[in-house]
């Protein structure tokens, strides 16, 4: 463990956020260390996705501070350290793009580092490392055979796997996933969870919004209960108890976790 590992992956201090004057997150203070798998759990509309939106910059905090790897989220986005997999509910799946190019879009941020002449050429002549990362990511989610198909032809589970591959291809330090298991067939679910296990064992930080309690219980290091405000944070065993889940449903914070919450 080097010095850099002691910097938290995500640190929120008295964070507030709102959509159109309607509060979605209130007084969130928490610290997530690097290299761990955190599951964010809460009812619909509880602000789980909003927390991820604050990190990717599609929502700005009303008050409070959010640091990613000790830095501003915007700087860490530009540095390519944040990979994000959305729910993709409103995606236009008939977009004319192949599975391979979709995964390559995960490298578009890193392509800014390439010399200008490479960026102006078709990708066949561009830096081969992007292509290699995309192929490896497609292999990892077992979608290499579908590389040339249009993205719209795939099943729901296959699309999720391709979107996960896009996040993997970025080789980012932090993986943010918004309900990666929603609407996914059992084989795809097993494959996604195994892939995330491998990412964590390689030192990546996994932050996953989910409704799936069994997978959170089995895989997560920390569970974060959110219902507009932070209800509790701790090990899966502690947080997924009946008492805590009842508190989550009502929305009363755990008294023992008052003040600053730090992951186990």
């Amino acid at each position: 463990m080097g010095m850099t590992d002691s910097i938290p992956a995500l640190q929120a201090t008295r964070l507030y956020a709102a959509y159109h004057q309607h509060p979605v997150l209130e007084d969130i203070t928490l610290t997530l260390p690097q290299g761990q798998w955190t599951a964010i759990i809460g009812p619909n509309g509880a602000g789980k996705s909003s927390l991820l939106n604050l990190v990717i910059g599609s929502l700005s905090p009303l008050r409070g501070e959010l640091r990613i790897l000790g830095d501003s989220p915007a700087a860490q986005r530009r540095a390519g350290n944040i990979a994000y997999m959305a729910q993709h509910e409103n995606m236009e799946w008939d977009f004319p793009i192949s599975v391979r190019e979709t995964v390559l879009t995960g490298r578009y941020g890193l392509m800014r580092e390439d010399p200008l002449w490479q960026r102006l050429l078709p990708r066949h002549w561009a830096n081969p490392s992007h292509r290699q990362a995309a192929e490896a990511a497609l292999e990892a989610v077992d979608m290499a055979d579908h590389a040339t198909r249009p993205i719209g032809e795939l099943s729901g589970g296959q699309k999720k796997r391709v979107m996960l591959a896009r996040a993997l291809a970025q080789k980012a330090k932090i993986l943010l996933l918004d309900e990666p298991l929603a609407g996914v067939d059992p084989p795809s679910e097993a494959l996604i969870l195994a892939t995330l296990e491998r990412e964590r064992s390689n030192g990546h930080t996994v932050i996953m919004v989910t409704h799936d309690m069994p997978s959170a219980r089995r895989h997560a290091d920390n569970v974060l209960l959110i219902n507009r405000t932070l209800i509790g944070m701790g090990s899966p065993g502690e947080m997924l108890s009946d008492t805590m889940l009842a508190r989550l449903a009502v929305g009363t914070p755990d008294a023992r976790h008052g003040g600053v919450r730090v992951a186990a």
Partner: protein
Amino acid sequence: MLPLEALATGVIDALIALLMMAVSLLPEPLAAPFEYRFMQRALLTSVLVGAICGLLSCYVVLKRWSLLGDAISHAVLPGVAIAYLLGWPFFIGAFITGALTSLGIGALERHTRIKADAAMGLMFTAAFALGIVIISKIATSTHLMHILFGNVLGVQTTALILTLVASLVAVLAIWLAYRPLLLYTFDPQQAQALGFNTSLIHYGLILLLTLTIVASLETVGIILVVAMLITPGATAHLLTDRFPTMLAISVSVGVISAVVGLVLSVSLDVASGGAIVLVASSLFLIALLAAPKHGLVARHWRRWRLNRV
């Protein structure tokens, strides 16, 4: 200013010479009208307008910006009228009111509870109405009629230079920002997460759209320019599942429509804008019926075969 104008005229002459080499391959009755200088300039303008409209059309269709294209094209009318009153070149006024209206639409949409389509309808009808009121005060001008309905045969040198510059800007911008534009069009949230400046891309694309519309005014006119911003892209979307191929097909549809429409408008003595758009619509109809994968015939054939098994 003078050396720049001389350079532009030189480029125009060179491009016309290139086009005439292609024309000389055509059979005599088709090539004959292009002996006139005004036909040569009309041909060059049509090719350029067809190409940039085809290019932008892909983004318009995939981003569902058809109504926005319609809005901007109507919003340039007051700019044209004001520029006419002040004796400015029409495209300066057109660009200013077009850009202001698209910014106004964005502001209404973001800061009030008005929805996007209502915001567009509100802003562009207001701008168009202002244009009509101003024009009704000016003595009837054939020039303004040409802005409304297009008259490619009467293209002035300044308008041709503008079209040329607009084409260069559009091609360069799309080439340099190809990946950010593609990602923003496909998945804006991902573009945001990867640290791209999505507002810059958004407004850059809108300004590019405005520039294309202004550059196309004299060829197809305000009312019909939106057709050239939808039909080529929609036709290409039916024919391919690859974005670069879609760009190529869309540009081809735009150029073919503009050139064939021009020839038809001369030989049948009908309005150029209408002829160009009708050719584009015919190409769309053919693609709609006969596209190999997404065409109606192919779809029904697949369904029929599935039902038989």
